């Protein structure tokens, strides 16, 4: 794996009046990337549809209509109805809110924890580094679903548990990235200078190292959203995550799978937003990475 690091600000930094044009050039590069724009549109759609779900929904996602159960798409029910006659289109919209919540909380907590642990591993003493690496390797040795199954066996299914699993399994990725970047920066001259001026470790880590580490990590976060959304949907599909009657893409797929011989519409309607969201964040993350940090390309 290649060493990943951003340019240190000292020495390599462009002159101030040039900095603006570099930024504008990168923005231009991004705007001219069709895949990136496509991804951005999908991501915006995901945010808007989840946040404004009550506005776009045509029905109450929990309202039953037994006579109209398992119907195909119609003018009234755009994506058909489920086994209890609930409107699938509205349920899919509300399911997006669950996905958004898990993605936002999960990714941000994992990012911050991973950042701190990774910087400590990279900057701290050798034994701490070795210990943390061992812990990360151990976490990685549990396949996510198996870890989730074991955890659910003990604690019972809940959304909080899904969040905890998402956070625990994605921390090593962030921490490893932060560690490699920190190691690369550790012995650079500007850090050495700061240290000889008597700066505390906390100051060096958070004021000087963090700004250089955070960029690639934000890109990794964008690319991690699909992973997190998929874990939530997958666990809810197995009945181990969000519990009925709450709508989630996973529970819709689960209920649709049980009646797949009667109506194909639920597994189609429940799957499409999942695919669009993962595609959107993947395209967006790749475009951001190509523009801002071509070096990261090999690392992942």
């Amino acid at each position: 794996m290649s060493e990943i690091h951003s340019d240190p600000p000292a020495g390599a930094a462009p002159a101030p009046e040039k900095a603006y044009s570099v930024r504008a050039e990168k923005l231009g590069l991004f705007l001219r990337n069709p895949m990136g724009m496509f991804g951005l549109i999908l991501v915006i759609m995901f945010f808007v549809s989840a946040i404004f779900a009550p506005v776009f929904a045509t029905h109450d996602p929990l309202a039953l209509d037994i006579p109209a159960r398992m119907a195909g798409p119609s003018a009234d029910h755009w994506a058909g109805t489920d086994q209890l006659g609930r409107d699938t289109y509205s349920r899919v919209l509300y399911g997006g809110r669950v996905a958004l919540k898990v993605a936002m909380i999960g990714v941000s907590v994992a990012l911050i924890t991973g950042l701190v642990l990774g910087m400590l591993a990279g900057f701290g003493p050798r034994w701490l580094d070795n210990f943390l690496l061992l812990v990360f390797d151990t976490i990685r040795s549990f396949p996510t679903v198996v870890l989730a199954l074991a955890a659910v066996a003990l604690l019972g299914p809940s959304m909080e548990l899904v969040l905890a699993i998402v956070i625990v399994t994605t921390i090593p990725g962030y921490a490893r990235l932060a560690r490699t970047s920190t190691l690369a920066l550790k012995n650079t001259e500007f850090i050495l200078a700061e240290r000889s001026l008597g700066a505390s470790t906390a100051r060096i880590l958070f004021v000087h190292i963090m700004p250089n580490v955070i960029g690639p990590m934000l890109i990794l976060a964008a690319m991690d959203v699909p992973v997190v959304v998929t874990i939530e949907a997958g666990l809810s599909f197995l009945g181990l995550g969000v519990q009925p009657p709450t709508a989630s893409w996973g529970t819709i797929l689960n209920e649709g799978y049980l009646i797949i011989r009667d109506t194909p519409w639920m597994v189609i309607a429940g799957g499409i937003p999942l695919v669009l969201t993962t595609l959107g964040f993947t395209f967006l993350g790749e475009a951001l990475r190509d523009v801002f940090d071509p070096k990261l390309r090999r690392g992942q």
Partner: protein
Amino acid sequence: MLWYLMKRLCLSVIIIVMAVGALFIMLHSIPGDPVSIALGPRATPEVQAAYAAKMHLDKPIYYQFFIFLGDVAQGDLGVDVFSNRPVALTLGEQLPYTIALAVAALGWAIAIGIPLGCLSAIWPNSWIDRVTGILSVGTIALPSFLVSIWSILLFSITLRWMPVIGAGDEGDIVDQLYHLVLPAFAVGLGWVGYLARMVRASMLEVMGENYIRSARAFGLPPARIVFRYALPVAVLPTITLIGVGFGGLLSGTVFAEIIFSRPGVGRIIYDMVLARNFPVVQGAVLVTIALYVVVTLIADLLVSWLDPRVRDTF
């Protein structure tokens, strides 16, 4: 080489012990008392006491942990709470199904993904490169459990080409392979794109090396350059990635086993979690982790055997 092997083996053992420890602590930190969870609320005090003594639950937790480690080292994974069968026996029956699925999925992904990656690296920006690029991002973004559901919908229910559930009749190899097609397709699809991208990236790098340019200058046939000199080097990082990604592959097999109602370790874990049969869950999770650790170990050893540079940097 021997030194490297020793270090790598020690690390694997430490990881397995740590993972078992974590699992053990989790299983023993369940709110409530493990005896009543295992036996249910209606067990009599005598039965509970007998069970506690049998499972060493009356001893301190570190003592239990070492007993458990000792048993595991002897191949004893405990006993099924319900059927009283040794867990190792049950897992021994289920493991071949999981391994067959994982190998089949990985096999077709390697057979398609690596050539695709090679072709798009040989002709960058050609139509085949573009198609591969879009295809690989697309397949990576498709969750494997969704591929499973949608392929059942398309191939089994709508087109009726493929069987829906089960692993086929025992002893009938053709039928078993027939039942393996859809699950292997679903589990492996994401890997096709993943491998194609990885091979493309490392091939592009290798093709820019001086020794490849020299080979060209000597007038070697292009096919010989690619397959004899470039590919063996370019494929090294991919081997490591297959090892590291094997955990994800196992997650995929868990979903496929549940959705296609196939026997296998993942399905056993799922069923036994729902049945709260903890000794089986514990044993099966342990076997899964061991499988993962062994595969990464094999991948690392393979790379270090093929690439002497790795041995020195470890």
